[in-house]
């Protein structure tokens, strides 16, 4: 019964689950702080009104959405070098969480845009379009993984796609930005001065989302490692009795 990964994976999973539990208290605290800061502490924006408060969480989710993709990129590279499936499971977890946060960004965006600019979807806005392309790349990444059998090949191909995707996203942003300077869209982003309380609210929200990302990442990776170990153990049991 060859147990290559199971013992290590189960150990790491145990450790990550412990970390997750430790992170819960700070998460709730900073989360509550973020809610207070966004809804009470920060003043109402003069031009946009109450709906602007969504902005703090929108930015938080956007930041973590891109951070998650960076994790996918780095974990993919490390996997290709080390060939330790742990990194593949980490990347997959990061991608899953990343697509959740990017979905939040893409759904709160239109809800915010509609009352302010009277449009659901500002075609041509570089940030919006780049986030949309990021979402598409995430989904493609997950679909690719689901089409392949577990193992080294899936990890390799996913890592390659993640790397190419990560290299591509800045190019997408530049190309849309350039496109917009030729054809200015009617909607211009308001370069509104942020009141200090607003800046604080934004930073706290970003911190809260980052903490949420870390917690979810440890938890999901631990789950994946346990699942991986379970598969390996089941295989070993079958071999021994078969």
């Amino acid at each position, binding site marked *: 019964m060859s147990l290559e990964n199971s013992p290590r994976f189960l150990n790491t999973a145990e450790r990550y689950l412990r970390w997750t539990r430790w992170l819960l208290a700070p998460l709730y605290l900073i989360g509550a702080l973020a809610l207070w800061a966004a809804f009470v502490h920060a003043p109402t924006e003069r031009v946009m009104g*109450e709906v602007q408060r969504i902005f703090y969480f929108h930015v938080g989710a956007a930041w973590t959405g891109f951070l998650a993709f960076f994790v996918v990129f780095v974990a993919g590279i490390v996997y290709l070098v080390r060939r330790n499936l742990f990194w593949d499971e980490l990347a997959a977890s990061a991608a899953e969480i990343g697509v959740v946060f990017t979905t939040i960004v893409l*759904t709160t965006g239109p809800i915010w845009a509609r009352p302010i600019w009277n449009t659901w979807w500002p075609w041509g806005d570089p940030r919006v379009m780049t986030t949309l392309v990021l979402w598409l790349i995430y989904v493609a990444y997950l679909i690719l993984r689901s089409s392949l059998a577990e193992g080294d090949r899936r990890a390799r191909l996913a890592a390659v796609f993640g790397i190419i995707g990560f290299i591509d996203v800045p190019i997408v942003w530049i190309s849309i930005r350039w496109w917009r300077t030729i054809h200015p869209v009617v909607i211009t982003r308001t370069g509104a001065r942020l009141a200090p309380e607003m800046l604080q609210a934004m930073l706290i929200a970003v911190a809260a989302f980052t903490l949420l990302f870390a917690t979810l990442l440890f938890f999901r990776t631990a789950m994946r490692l346990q699942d991986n170990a*379970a598969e390996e153990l*089941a295989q070993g049991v079958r071999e021994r009795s078969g």
Partner: protein
Amino acid sequence: MLGDILQRFKATEFLFAGYTVIWTVLLLYFLYLNKKQREVSKKLQGIYETLHKDKPED
């Protein structure tokens, strides 16, 4: 003036909608995580039971 008040109110509706959307998406993800966690636990449980069955001397 009434139009202004209605405008403010409408904007708050959007704020509420956005806020609800965030929690809904996160909740859906938590439910998904829960389902996966239960599957994994069941798998591990099954294996421990199988291993213990194989060792009657314990």
